[in-house]
């Protein structure tokens, strides 16, 4: 997943600030007019069980109740042709 993220999104080196103040790489995307940034490491771990290439369906299946709030982003990725 880490590699897939890096191949499909713009990467910002040390662009994510962890809660302890340390920096890790971030990736960015657009959801409509809204720019969104997230942690490459966090996403790779959280959605690491999903087969590559991921789909909106397989990604949403990790969090079916959308407690993490990512479903809308996966819908945006699908609309942009990043995933199917």
């Amino acid at each position, binding site marked *: 997943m880490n590699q897939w993220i890096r191949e499909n999104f713009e990467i910002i080196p040390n662009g994510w600030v962890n809660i302890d103040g340390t920096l890790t790489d971030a990736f960015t995307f657009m959801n409509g007019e809204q720019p969104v940034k997230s942690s490459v490491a966090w996403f790779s771990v*959280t959605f690491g069980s999903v087969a590559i290439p991921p789909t909106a369906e397989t990604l949403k299946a990790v969090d079916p109740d959308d407690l*993490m709030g990512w479903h809308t982003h996966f819908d945006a990725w699908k609309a942009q042709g990043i995933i199917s």
Partner: protein
Amino acid sequence: MAIVKLSDLRDLWKNISDWVTGANSNYKPQVQLTGSKAKDSGVIDYNKGVTPLAASTTETIVDVQKAAILENVSIAVDSTVNILRFNLSKRKPDGTYSNLFVADVTIGGWAKGAGVSVKMLNDSGGNYLWDLQKYDSTNNIYAFRLTRPLEFPFGFKLEAANSDSVAHKVIAEGYYLTLV
């Protein structure tokens, strides 16, 4: 009481009209504000109440890429823990941003800015930049407000960051002025 002739009054008004921008030949004042730096105003309207801010994401609340005054902003959140941050950055002449303040929305948390750490939203209700506008511990609703306008010569950006593993509701409202 002195009696002023109508012709004198007209002359007086004409003189006044000389420095009222836009006065016409009929001496009807067409007042135009002068001396103000404000060129336009903008509204901050960021609502992640229905579709909360996703886990481990950062979103831009407002990004103004010209000289501006951030007049006011209020932010409401649904969490007390140290996982929501609001990064206020000043835009530099080269278009990059320099983080100005990190406001951790935490009762007793810390805001880091300008090389110092400042107690944020403590029991007394805030610090030199923000104050705690509402605190509803029963419903886990917190709101805080910028306490004074901030001027940015090249613009500013305000971001919301959620470092938690679940989504959180965030609502930000305010307004700013862009400058000539």
